[in-house]
C-alpha cells in the first residue's frame, strides 16, 4: 500500500483569512485525505508545468473533509511561489505530494488531563487539525483543551469563533489590537503559574522559531512534556535528499548532537530534543 501520493489536484477555493494569509481547499485529494494525520504536511507546486519554481512548498494540512476528497492548507504569501499559489482560480491545477512527515504523537498524551495548544501565526494550521481530531475521540472526552493563539496584530490573526466550542481559547496580539496585549508565551507563563500545580498537562506548539524556543524553555521550567512542529527548507519531502536537516541532541554521539530531517523524522519533534540555535 502506498503511504505517499503525488497527484494533480484542482483548486476548490482560495479564501483570504488574514493579511497575506489564505486558506486554500484542494479537490481530488482523496488518497491523501483518507490517511493524513494531524501534524502531517503536503508539498504543493503552484505551476506544475513550469520550471520556474522547481521545489514544492510545504504546508501543514489544516483539515481534511471526510465527506469530500478535499484537503485544506493555510498559506502565508512570503515569496514568488506562494504569491502564485494564492492567485490561483477555481478549477486550476496544482501538484500535491503527501501526506508527509510523522504527525503529532497523541498516544503520549494519555496520562495527561490538560492539552495545551500554543500557536503563533500560521502555526494554527496543524494545531486546529489536532484540536478537531482529539475532541472527536472518546478517550479525550474528559480532557480539557486550552488553545493559545498569538499574532502580531489583529489583521494578521487567523482565528475562528468555532474553536471556542472545542477549547478554552486565549487570543494574544503584540499590540493588543485583538484579545490580550503581549506575547502568547507570556500569557502561557502566567496561566501556568496559576494552574500548573493542579494541572497534569501535555503541550503542542507550532509557529515561528523564536516562539518555539520560548515554549520549549517554559515547558522545561514547568516540567511539561511537549511536542513542537519544526519547519525547514526542503526539496524531496521524502527523506532522500537530506536537505531539511535540524540540529538535535544525541547522547549516543561523541559530539552529543546529530542532524535529523524534518520531512522524515519530523516535522513533529520532542521539544527538548531540538537544539534551538540563536
Amino acid at each position, binding site marked *: 500500500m*502506498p*503511504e*505517499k*501520493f*503525488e497527484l494533480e489536484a484542482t483548486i476548490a477555493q482560495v479564501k483570504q483569512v488574514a493579511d497575506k494569509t489564505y486558506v486554500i481547499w484542494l479537490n481530488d485529494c482523496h488518497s491523501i485525505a483518507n490517511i493524513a494525520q494531524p501534524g502531517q504536511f503536503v508539498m504543493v*507546486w503552484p505551476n506544475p508545468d513550469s*520550471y*520556474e*519554481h*522547481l*521545489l*514544492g512548498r510545504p504546508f501543514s494540512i489544516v483539515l481534511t473533509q471526510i465527506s469530500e476528497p478535499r484537503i485544506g492548507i493555510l498559506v502565508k504569501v512570503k515569496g514568488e*511561489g506562494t504569491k502564485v499559489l494564492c492567485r490561483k482560480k477555481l478549477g486550476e491545477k496544482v*501538484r500535491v*505530494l503527501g501526506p508527509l512527515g510523522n504527525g503529532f504523537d497523541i498516544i503520549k498524551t494519555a496520562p495527561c488531563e490538560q492539552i495545551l495548544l500554543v500557536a503563533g501565526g500560521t502555526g494554527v494550521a496543524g494545531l486546529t487539525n489536532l484540536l478537531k481530531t482529539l475532541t472527536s475521540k472518546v478517550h479525550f472526552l474528559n480532557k480539557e483543551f486550552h488553545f493559545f493563539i498569538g499574532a502580531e496584530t489583529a489583521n494578521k490573526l487567523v482565528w475562528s469563533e468555532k474553536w471556542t466550542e472545542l477549547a478554552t481559547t486565549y487570543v494574544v496580539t503584540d499590540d493588543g489590537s485583538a484579545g490580550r496585549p503581549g506575547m502568547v508565551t507570556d500569557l502561557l507563563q502566567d496561566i501556568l503559574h496559576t494552574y500548573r500545580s493542579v494541572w497534569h498537562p501535555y503541550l503542542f506548539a507550532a509557529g515561528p522559531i523564536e516562539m518555539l524556543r520560548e515554549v520549549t524553555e517554559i515547558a522545561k521550567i514547568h516540567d511539561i512534556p511537549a511536542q513542537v512542529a519544526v519547519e*525547514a*527548507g*526542503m*526539496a*524531496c519531502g*521524502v*527523506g*532522500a*535528499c*537530506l*536537505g*531539511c*536537516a*535540524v*540540529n538535535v541532541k544525541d547522547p549516543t554521539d561523541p559530539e552529543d548532537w*546529530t*542532524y535529523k530531517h524534518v520531512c*522524515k523524522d519530523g516535522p513533529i519533534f520532542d521539544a527538548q530534543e531540538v537544539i534551538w540555535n540563536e
Partner: protein
Amino acid sequence: MSEPKMAVEIADIWLKNPVMNASGTMGYGEEYKDFVDIGEMGAFVPKGLTLEPRKGSEPPRIIETPCGVINRIGLENVGVERFIEEKLPYLRQFDTPIIVNINGETVDEYRECAYLLKDVEGIAALEVNLGCPNMERGGAEFGKDKQTVTNVVRPVWELTRVPLIVKLTPDVTSIAEIAKAVEGAGANAISLINTTKGAAIIDGKLFVGGLSGPAIKPRALYLVSEVVKAVKIPVIGIGGIMTAEDALDLLGVGGRAVQVGTANFFNHRAIPEIIQGIREFMAGNHIADINNFIGSYV
C-alpha cells in the same frame, strides 16, 4: 515493430535501459518506494558515501534558483560500513545493477572506500566522484587537474574488481584533458556533469553550493559532447534532464546512458516517465535498438 530494445552495456554491465538516477537524489532507494520501482531502472546509484559517516553541512542546505536548485548537503551519509550492513540488503532484491558512488577528502580515503567495497556482493560498479563541490578538501578539487585525477583513479583501479566509473566536475578549463587523463588511469566509463559551483543570497547571507536542474542542461550537453569526442570509453550524461526529450538529447550527442537527478524533486515519478517516454519515442520513430540512436545527433 516489436518492443524497442532499450538495453545498453557499460563496461560489461548490462543495463536494461539507459536511465539511472544521480547519486544523492533518491537516497538509498527505499525513500522513493511509492514512486519508483528500482527494478525498472537501468541502474541505481545510492547516496554518495565517504569512509566514515558524515553529518553534513549546517542548514540551510538546499534552495531554489530560477529553473534550478543549489545544494550544499555536505555529503551527509552513513559511511561505507553502515551502507553495506544496513542499506545494501534492501537494494539486492532488485534485478538492477547498483553503482556505489564514493568520495574522499584525501586519496587514501577513496582507496579505503574501494578496499572496503571490494568483493561485496551486489555491487556492480564504483562511481569515483571527483565532482562534489561541498567538501572542505578533496571532492571536486581532485577533479580539476589531470595529475590529481590520476592520483585518485589509479590506486582505486588497482584495487577494485568491478568496473570503475569516474564522475567529473564541470568547473574546469579543459574537460577533454581531464577525461583523457581519467581514461588513461584505467577508468571504464566517465559520468558528467556533477553540479557546478554557484551561489545565491538567502536572508542577506551568501549561500554557496552546487547548482543543478534545467538551468545547467546546456552546460551538460556541451561538456558531454566534448568528452564523447575525447575518449573511447562510454560516457554517462548528467545535468538538467527533466523529460525523455532531455534524456534523448544527451544520448543523441553520444551518451551511452543518462542520470536523472534534480527532476526527482520536481516530479517523483520522473524516472519511470522518462523510461516510458524513451520507449514511446523509439516506437514512434521506428528505432529498434537504442544503440542505433546513440550519437546520432552529431
